[in-house]
């Protein structure tokens, strides 16, 4: 009917992707690990945004969370410990058409990868940066991480962690050109989904620190948090992350916070008495490095050769 050949119509209709298109190998994280929920949330964002799987790349470092690319149906780059961000930035540099996700952990990003955490946020390339923060080194079996609480017993500090933990939020907010800083827990799936979606839609580096359970090596850390809603502060705003009733129930302490207000974001992040969840800071207009680094990608071979000839002319005697 309509005079269309069947094989034409196949091309006319856009492909529709289901969750299955974003599924890779079976996740082999421990039962009860918070990473499972992050994977599901990310897959749902990809599906709901109908992101072409072949144009997505998930880049990771080393650690439990860095196994994530293996469980996605997109392209993946399981890199080196601490080095996911330089790899991800390089992917984006001449291929701004690719959608880039980064999966990293508290050890990977805040310890061995510190330099790249700071500088990649400064470059502000368009990507979604998920830091799975469980306050412990899991894959190498229970060593102190930069975010392990003071006194927390690990294999490297059997009498308890001896240095106050790093505050990743204040550090991140202090980086020039930072454009999107959010914090969320793995145990509220709707808020996790909405936060990752907002980070995905943001043009720039969407930094999301995910406070995440390690039921094997740091159960007491997450149990203490889950058992005490008074520790959290839910940030709400029309420009913030959409909050559903389940989040409001889980995080009864709430406040209005304009994510455009960097100074207030900093005060909230620096307050040791409360853990904020929601969008701390958002600047949709921060410059993205790939706008500079991808210049010239469209140039044809002929143009390159002609212009190279001009460069040679200047060196010719």
């Amino acid at each position, binding site marked *: 009917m309509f005079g269309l050949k069947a094989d034409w119509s196949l091309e006319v209709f856009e492909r529709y992707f289901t969750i299955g298109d974003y599924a890779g190998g079976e996740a082999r994280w421990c039962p009860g690990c918070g990473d499972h929920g992050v994977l599901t949330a990310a897959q749902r964002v990809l599906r709901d945004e109908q992101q072409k799987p072949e144009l997505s790349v998930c880049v990771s470092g080393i650690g439990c969370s860095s196994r994530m690319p293996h469980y996605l149906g997109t*392209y993946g780059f399981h890199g080196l410990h601490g080095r996911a961000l330089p790899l991800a*930035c390089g992917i984006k540099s001449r291929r701004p058409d690719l959608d880039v996700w980064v999966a990293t952990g508290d050890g990977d990003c805040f310890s061995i990868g510190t330099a790249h955490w700071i500088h990649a946020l400064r470059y502000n390339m368009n990507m979604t940066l998920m830091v799975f923060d469980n306050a412990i080194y899991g894959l190498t079996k229970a060593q102190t991480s930069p975010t392990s609480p003071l006194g927390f017993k690990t294999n490297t500090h059997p009498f308890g962690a001896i240095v106050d933990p790093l505050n990743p939020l204040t550090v991140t907010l202090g980086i020039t050109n930072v454009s999107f800083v959010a914090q969320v827990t793995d145990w509220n799936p709707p808020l996790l989904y909405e936060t990752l979606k907002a980070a995905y839609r943001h043009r720039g580096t969407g930094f999301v620190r995910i406070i995440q359970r390690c039921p094997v090596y740091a159960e007491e850390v997450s149990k203490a948090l889950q058992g005490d809603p008074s520790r959290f502060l839910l940030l709400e705003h029309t420009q913030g992350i959409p909050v559903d009733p389940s989040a409001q129930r889980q995080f009864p302490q709430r406040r209005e916070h304009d994510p455009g207000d960097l100074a207030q974001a900093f005060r909230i992040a620096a307050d040791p008495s409360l853990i904020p969840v929601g969008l701390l800071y958002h600047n949709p207009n921060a410059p993205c490095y790939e706008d500079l680094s991808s*210049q010239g990608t*469209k140039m044809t071979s002929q143009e*390159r*050769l002609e*212009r*190279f000839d*001009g460069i040679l002319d200047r060196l010719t005697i």
Partner: protein
Amino acid sequence: MSTAATKPLSPQEQTDTPSAVQRIGEHIVEIVSDSGEGAQKAGQTFGTICARMGNGVWTVEIIPAEIQPPARSPAGASGIRIRLASHNVTNMGDEADTVVAFNEQVLYSRIANGAYKRGTVVLLEDKWRDDPVPEIRAQYAKAVREFRENGLIVHELPIEQACLEIMSNPRRGKNMFVLGMLCHIYSRDIQKAKDEIATTFKRKDAEVIALNHRLFDAGLAFAAEHLDACYEVPPRPEEETRDKRFIVTNGNQALALGVMASGMELVSMYPITPATSASHYLADVFHEVGGFVHQAEDEIAAIGFAIGSSFAGKTACTITSGPGLALKTEMVALAVMAEIPLVLAVVQRGGPSTGLPTKVEQGDLLAALYGEPGDAPKVVIAAATIQECLHFVIMARRLAEAFRTPVILLTDANLATGVQPYARPKPTPDWLAPPIDQSEWDPSVPPYDWDPETGLSPRPIPGMSGGQYILTGLAHTNFSKVAYDSDSNQVGCNMRSRKLTALASTLKPPQVHGDEEGDLLLVGWGSTLGAIEEAVDRARAQGHRVSSLHLRFLSPMEPGLGEIFARFGKVMTIEINYSDAPDAPLITAETRRYAQLAWLLRAHTLLDIDCWSVVYGHPLQPGMIHNVILKRLTAPQDVGDKTEKEGGTD
């Protein structure tokens, strides 16, 4: 100080030039000064004028390690050497013939480096003789006396005073005055010289150019009035230059040109001496061909960024030096393991650790081959000339993509700072990287669809529908699935290693310079090519049965070496890296540590290959190697013989 390197032309080649003008085959000129006195600009301009007149030229900068070292100090010597000749020049040569010095102290470090000989003419700024500071006057008088006692011919000249007639601050202009002096001494074409000055200052206004032309004219007249010496260095034979166009660059600019000619669009780097100037030049021009220089936050990020780009289909280049190579090690291993194309140029400097940042060494060969834990086979090539710095980048990009591997391209500080004219490249579309393949990938084809014989496989690139795979540095199957089983690891290692064998099977045995058999074969790699061949030619002219061979491929090794080596009585490598002298304390044939290529060749051929290597931080000169040849040819057979002794400086 050894014999002169000048080669007077034969009588029949000499024509009826005025008796005052002496025709010579080549000369070596130096301008030495404190930092910031413009010696390098004057020397580069002089070198370019010579190149434009058809001479063979090699210029090399004399660089102090500090940016502004104390004035009038031997360690602060800054300047340039220009070797000009009636033939193609491949190295910096031996001792200088003519030296212009802006103060006497800077000459001491050059003398210590063996840069001068008895009879070297020194044109010395004389203002220090009457300096108000008594210590300076005393230093000056003492130095001039010592120089003369050691055979230097010192002409004390009022250079600054003469410049004062033209400008109030001669420190800023005397370099062009000196250029005028040199152009008189070497009978340069005045119009070409003035054109070149105009080019040198093209970014300044016309007044600046006019002032520099006046200084140049004054220098010409001054030399005509004060100096007897006047030379003519005829151009290279016409058949070497006819219908050819030449470009003039240093080795780092050549690397940068190679990047552009290869179609690579990204160089990701972190500043490190002596590699950085390649990126300086690229940063100036790369955008014109659509490229981008990324200055990363550190060496690791620099290579990570490049690997990211390569993974995404745009093979990238990162440029570094020894300490940076060390930092990049884990990333290089990742690129090997996951078979990611990458070009890694290493401009070698003195090591270990921070070492000698501005000085040359060939000390990174073994690190390039074996720096990574585990087995990490990769392609390692070394450029032997400035021209090869350009062409080898193009080759490196192609090999990287064809063999799905990182390629390390070794150059060094000698090539990086040496400047010479060479044939202008004629790029063709096939030099450039093809556009990224974004066609569909058959999902049943694994991302590592290894040919069992060659280890080669095509690679899916993000954007190719159906090609989705997870690249990993973990041991993996052909489907890039993490695998801890013993077979998968063995197969993966086999496949990666086999690629090198496949590449080796396409290489030809290297050409021997000189006869195919003889008493001694010198084997070199990298920037020492010109000096080694010049030394071999000298020894052969004396009747010695010596030849040389220069390797460009170090991994895989070029084929047929054992067969070639067997035709010579002795085989020894000549290198700029450390080896134990055979007669050093406690050293025996068993304990001796060899130079890096010698280690490789001994293992590769199972032959008793000797070596001679030094780490004085300066390029090897033909005279030094010539002495090594003569001593080695006359030495007793026993390698450990105590009578055998070769110093690094002659």
